[in-house]
């Protein structure tokens, strides 16, 4: 039954932008799906390709990386590295039959609360259509 399936999303949030935007979603009282897991990291560059794959392996239906906008990163290249690692993993995921949409990155700033909620809900619907993770 697809309706009852609510996809589990793991969101890696950079402490400088993503996590603060997540807090702002709370302040704005916008609703977020219950199956959203927020993981706080000091910088998007801290997320190892290993962690992203582990998240998918442990049954997450979708993984989102929230990083600062480009040229607005305290660690200069943190967000660009996260994007590059995502590209590398997309290569591997395609070869093992995982859809690329299950791993995505969204650039935002501390005051982009609305964008955070919109991105999560958009991904939530997308994953609902995509169905549960084949690695289940």
């Amino acid at each position: 039954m697809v309706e009852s399936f609510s996809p589990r999303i793991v969101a890696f949030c950079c402490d400088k932008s993503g996590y603060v935007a997540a807090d702002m979603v709370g302040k704005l009282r916008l609703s977020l799906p219950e199956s959203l897991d927020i993981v706080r990291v000091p910088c998007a560059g801290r997320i190892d390709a290993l962690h992203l794959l582990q998240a998918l392996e442990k049954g997450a239906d979708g993984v989102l990386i929230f990083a600062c906008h480009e040229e607005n990163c305290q660690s200069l290249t943190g967000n660009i590295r996260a994007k590059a690692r995502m590209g590398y993993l997309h290569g591997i995921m395609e070869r093992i039959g995982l859809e690329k949409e299950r791993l995505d990155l969204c650039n935002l700033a501390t005051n982009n609360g609305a964008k955070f909620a919109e991105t999560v809900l958009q991904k939530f619907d997308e994953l609902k259509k995509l169905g549960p993770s084949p690695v289940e």
Partner: protein
Amino acid sequence: MRSSKECRIAIVIDHCEGTLSHIFDEAMVRYFSGLPCVVSCYQDDNLSSPRRLEKLVAKLRKGKADRAVIVGGSPKRYEASFRRLDLGTGFNPYMFLVANVREQAVWTIPDVERAKEKTKTIVAKRIREATCLSPIGEEKFELSKNAIVLGGGVVGMRAALALADANIQVTLLSRAKDIGGKAIQLTHFYDRPGEVSSWFKDQVKKVKKHPNIAVKTSVELKGLEGSLGDYRVKVEDPSGKRREVEGSAVILAMGNDVIPNTEGIFGHQRFISPPQMEAMLADGGKSLVTDKERPLQTVTFILDLVNETIKIDSANAIKNAILLRENHDRAVYVICRDVKVSLDGMEKQYRKAREMGVIFIKYDDPPKFSLVNGQINVEVKEVSIQMRGDDYSLSILSDLVVVSERFVPSKDNQMLADVLGIPLAEEGFLMDENPQFARVRTNRRGVFIAGGCRYPQTLDESLVEAEAAAAGVTELLSQGFFGYDLAVAEIDPAKCAACLTCPRVCPHSAIVVERYAEGNVYVTGGYEKDFRWKAARVLPMQCYGCGICVSSCPTKAITLKHLTDDEISLQVGV
């Protein structure tokens, strides 16, 4: 991950002024107390107020817990204050985690029951994660109150004066024979009465006279290395002798260079650069005549051919146009793409210039120049009085044409960028305009930039930047010591394959790879203190704890003390 037997967790529930009380009912508190390794459970109405924190500290010191999980709002609400608590020897103030149930459960899930479920899962995960927390200490090292300012221009002088007044010993290094830089060519302020040169001489006098400033001129910059508290600049004086200048912090104020536009027709002697125009005005207009003493009657300023988004030329052009009309009664044209009036008082100057008869012509396609019996014929299509399609254009026979020089980064920028690991923007100026660094800070702790080497600006804007950079340095050195917490990366030498990935990816150049790392202090994995091994080492005081090196290291040799890989994996485990 140490076995969970040893850790004793205290749960601290923050009701956030009662807004979460409906969640933390007895059932919830009982659930929390029942979680593995939880030894105590405290409740409080508002943990963000200092007074209530003291009460909590008293309870925690008496309790048996060695780490805590705060259940309440965002970590940003607790981290700053909680880390500074003194919780007795057994409890390191960094060993706590925050279960952000308010923003991630209560406020974003309308239904109370499901919000409670979510609260439980979040707290359970934090408990699992708390098992692999490790104590983080703080360190302090003395900072001698001295600083180095590179560049003897107006910006360097103002920064040196600001630092010296805060009794910091300053060494001012300048490549030129004397300090002063290019601003000396300015004759008048554009918005305030009074000569620049008198203001200028007194600045130079103040710098040379100030007891705290040591000026070293005509020195060539050869290298710069070190970290906060221990920066060493290598310079070479004309005799070729190399010397090293010490300083706790560095301000880069080397300004920018200019390339005059002299190829083709621009090489003609009737084409002059803005500084030449300033010089002509400085000597009372005596030189505003041709060699046969005939007055150079029409002067045309051409703007925005180069440096279109830099306001300096536009401001000087309007100022000089007014002077030419006021004192020398010349016919003056200003030909530009956009008149730059976004400076204090410039709109009034622009109107004053037009009232005095200066003719402003705006173009979209650049003007063409040709030589017509000794005079320069400037052909330009005025935007507002003709359609784009028309082929005729205005032609202005001018005796003197002022063409602006191209502003280019100084040649030291590239060398400094390589040596210091500071990124260059496309045109080669220092540090892209990244809002996180607020113009004066760089990605190297203790190194600040101001003025033309960052971006060519007018005199006032550059001086404010000089003071802001001086403020940055004063802040760092004012306490006499630099205290930092060890929430940084640390490299295990045994696993390090010296593959040089980490110094290359580190955005703050905080990692060095020494041949034989004498005195490398390693505390992980039971290796004894003094270790002779070719490996990479993190300079704790330069590290910002971003963790890029940890995720790039191919042999997993680096651990980020405040967020280890295990902690992330546990957070991910659903």
